[in-house]
């Protein structure tokens, strides 16, 4: 499936905005991304498998609240950074 990568994470993907990954859940998808782009998962998910506070993962434009969200082969996944501060 296609995964949209936000600019802060593109240092891992060779500047690619879209990459491909596989998995039956968001957790499996992130594991697949980490195999392709080592280190990217820890930037998105902490060591307790919680999606980091300023990261949002959308599946078909719906917010995924945890790594257990199931995925289908044709799903579109967007990883976004929820920037804050001023």
């Amino acid at each position: 499936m296609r995964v949209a990568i936000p600019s802060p994470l593109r240092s891992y993907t060779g500047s690619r905005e879209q990459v491909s990954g596989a998995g039956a859940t968001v957790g499996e998808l992130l594991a697949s991304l980490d195999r392709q782009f080592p280190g990217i998962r820890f930037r998105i998910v902490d060591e307790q498998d919680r999606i980091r506070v300023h990261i949002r993962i959308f599946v078909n434009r719906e917010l995924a609240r945890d790594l257990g969200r199931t995925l289908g082969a044709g799903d579109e996944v967007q990883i976004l950074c929820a920037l804050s501060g001023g």
Partner: protein
Amino acid sequence: MGTLLLVSTRKGAFFFHGDRERRRWRADGPHFFGQIVNHVVLDPRDGRTLLAAVRPGHLGPSIYRSHDLGATWHEAERPPAFRKATAGELPLAVSHTFHLTPGHSSEPGAWYAGVSPPALFRSEDGGVTWSGVDGWNDHPMRFKWCPPEDQTPDGSILHSILVDPRDPAHLYVNASGGGSFESTDRGATWAPLNEAVEANFNPDPYPEYGQDPHCMALHPARPDRLYQQNHCGIYRLDRPASHWERIGKNMPPEIGDIGFGIVLHPRDPDTAWVFPMDGTTVWPRTSIDGKPALYRTRDGGASWQRQDRGLPREQAWYTVKRQAFAADDGDPVGLYFGTTGGELWMSANEGRSFRQIASHLPHVYAVVAARV
């Protein structure tokens, strides 16, 4: 031989390469532009390896290493991270690495990292992979020493990790809102070391633990001599004694002895510098009366002298954080500090006069001076 200043800021790291006389400085950076850099440290064992503690504001934290003084960087393959919590355990996540310390000279490749929430990690391979020091991270008293609800600004931290140059197994660590602790077995066991250190925010002002050390330094030429700038004053301890002496009582009363950093003369164990901050009323934590000054002792804290020549005379409300005040090992010693307003200052003559190296930098978190 020149001096390299490693300046860590809220928006990246900036390096300043000084000439032999420390007159001219060449700026290099930003490295990790836009990311929060808490500490960049040169490995004195090889003189060329840098480790950097980095976190973007919205991604997880990591550690990078460079073997060419910052020309290229490589991310840790396994950054500091807690193990997955089991049922009933508090699920901890590393917010950021705050402090990096090279290991003992006999242990090339060994590094320590102090993180927030307060925990200790060690690398055996030059910062490529990191593992928790279980003796601290799993200590049965850990959450009594450092309550997880502690709300230190920017998060409670483990900092000032000190390795005895005579013994790699002898360590000190300091936790904001926790106190100072000692291990004599490479971190397997720990004991508080806070006797006579005030904690005026506690019902018992002299508890066994719970103090707030801001910065501790060990003198390299006399490793039994420790100094600390604490939330509640300036202290000195000569081991094996365990009773700290509040040498800040000898500071001018109108200045007080509140501050963040403390810097030692590299060769004279009786000489140290502090940068007093306003600790009155609501704790403004700025230079007192808007008139920045260092205070120096040359007698182990029995007396202190003001040093402010060249610094602004008024309306300069500097805050200098605990890792943003440093000395080199030159003769005379060079002193350096960075402010939260992005100014970088130095003295090439042990504080007799000061001049500005840079301005308009981001909020400075750390300054490290190294000879390269």
